[in-house]
């Protein structure tokens, strides 16, 4: 086991913990940060795992991918936070409360004959 293995495993752990938060936490901020952390987990794996074959030669390609990924993650997180603010401003709640399944335009309408 090398330090690189540890980094990669940490990446897996971060990814799955963050995924867990996204799935189980209701608050939007948790979800958005969770998604951001999932990215961080992948970046760790991406930097550590391919480097294990030859730790002495740095592979610039994963580094480039991670740099690109970080910027993409910034953009995605910024939009997700902005949209979360919009949700809060329109529904007054930081949860996805307006259940779109139940929000039929007029629930009192008679059942259409089928």
């Amino acid at each position, binding site marked *: 086991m090398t330090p690189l293995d540890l980094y990669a495993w940490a990446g897996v752990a971060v990814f799955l913990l963050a995924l867990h938060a996204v799935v189980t936490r*209701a608050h939007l901020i948790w979800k958005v940060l969770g998604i951001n952390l999932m990215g961080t987990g992948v970046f760790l794996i991406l930097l550590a795992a391919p480097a294990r074959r030859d730790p002495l030669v740095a592979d610039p390609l994963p580094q480039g991918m991670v740099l690109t990924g970080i910027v993409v993650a910034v953009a995605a997180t*910024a939009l997700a936070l902005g949209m979360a603010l919009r949700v809060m*401003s329109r529904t007054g709640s930081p949860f996805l409360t307006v259940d779109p399944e139940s929000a039929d335009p007029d629930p009192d309408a008679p059942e259409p004959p089928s």
Partner: protein
Amino acid sequence: MSGPTDPQANNATGAASETGTGVDHAHVRPLLEDDGSRDGPAILTWMVGLLLVPAGVLLALGLRGAADSRDPRIPDLIAEHLPETGVSNPVTGVLLNFRGYDTLLEVAVLVAAMVAVWSLDRGQRVFGLPAGRARDEPVLAAVLRLAVPTAFLTAVYLTWLGSSEPAGAFQAGALLAGAGVLLTVARVMRPPTAAALPVRIIAAGGVAGFVVVGIAVLPFTGAFLAYPEGWAYPLILGLEAALAVAVAVILVELFVDVPSIPAPDSTLDTVDPTGDPLGRALAPDATPPDPGAP
């Protein structure tokens, strides 16, 4: 029911922007609190966890055994071709030459996020200190005087350095954005708004520069973004400069031009008197709100 031109709504927002309270903290704080009561039942939390643990173990075991057998390896290929890229830093070579297309799209992601945020709501443009107060705060003024020029200078240096050392447009852009945010929050600089044409031109400049260069070299080299011999370095440096400025403006935009709470036009947006998803009325006073609507 109010239409887009409802005078009352306009007055309310007008008043809000004058007093400089785009975000009403009293409104926001409860929204950020989370006692976990809305989360799913604990059993769900545990079950998802139990599902993810074996996945983690499998991934960890798999990663331990994984190694590519590719030959020649990509690092070797990059090292071999780096002299043709016009830069000496391999990561910059990957970002701006070998995989310049990815970088182009990466800036496009930023632009997409910026446009998307603009489309969410009328931006909250006024926040932070009341205008002109920075002068009266000696510590803030000193920090600004020191930090902003330093950040600017460093950004220029980082852009130039990118070709040979780990640095480049994005690092420089982030620094510039930091300075911009500082100036905006201190109300020294008017926050850039979506409506301002220069903002849009600069923000689009990164992608535009990339695409224009890519197309311009196409007739000479036969491929998009394939720099002609001897042109790689100046073109990359020019692109880096445009990117740095564009990234900076976009990041500042993403920071300041976000939906405000409570919504300035909440009366017309949340009531949704008609079935029109854009909140447009059918005709002036044409139909009364559906009494059955929630």
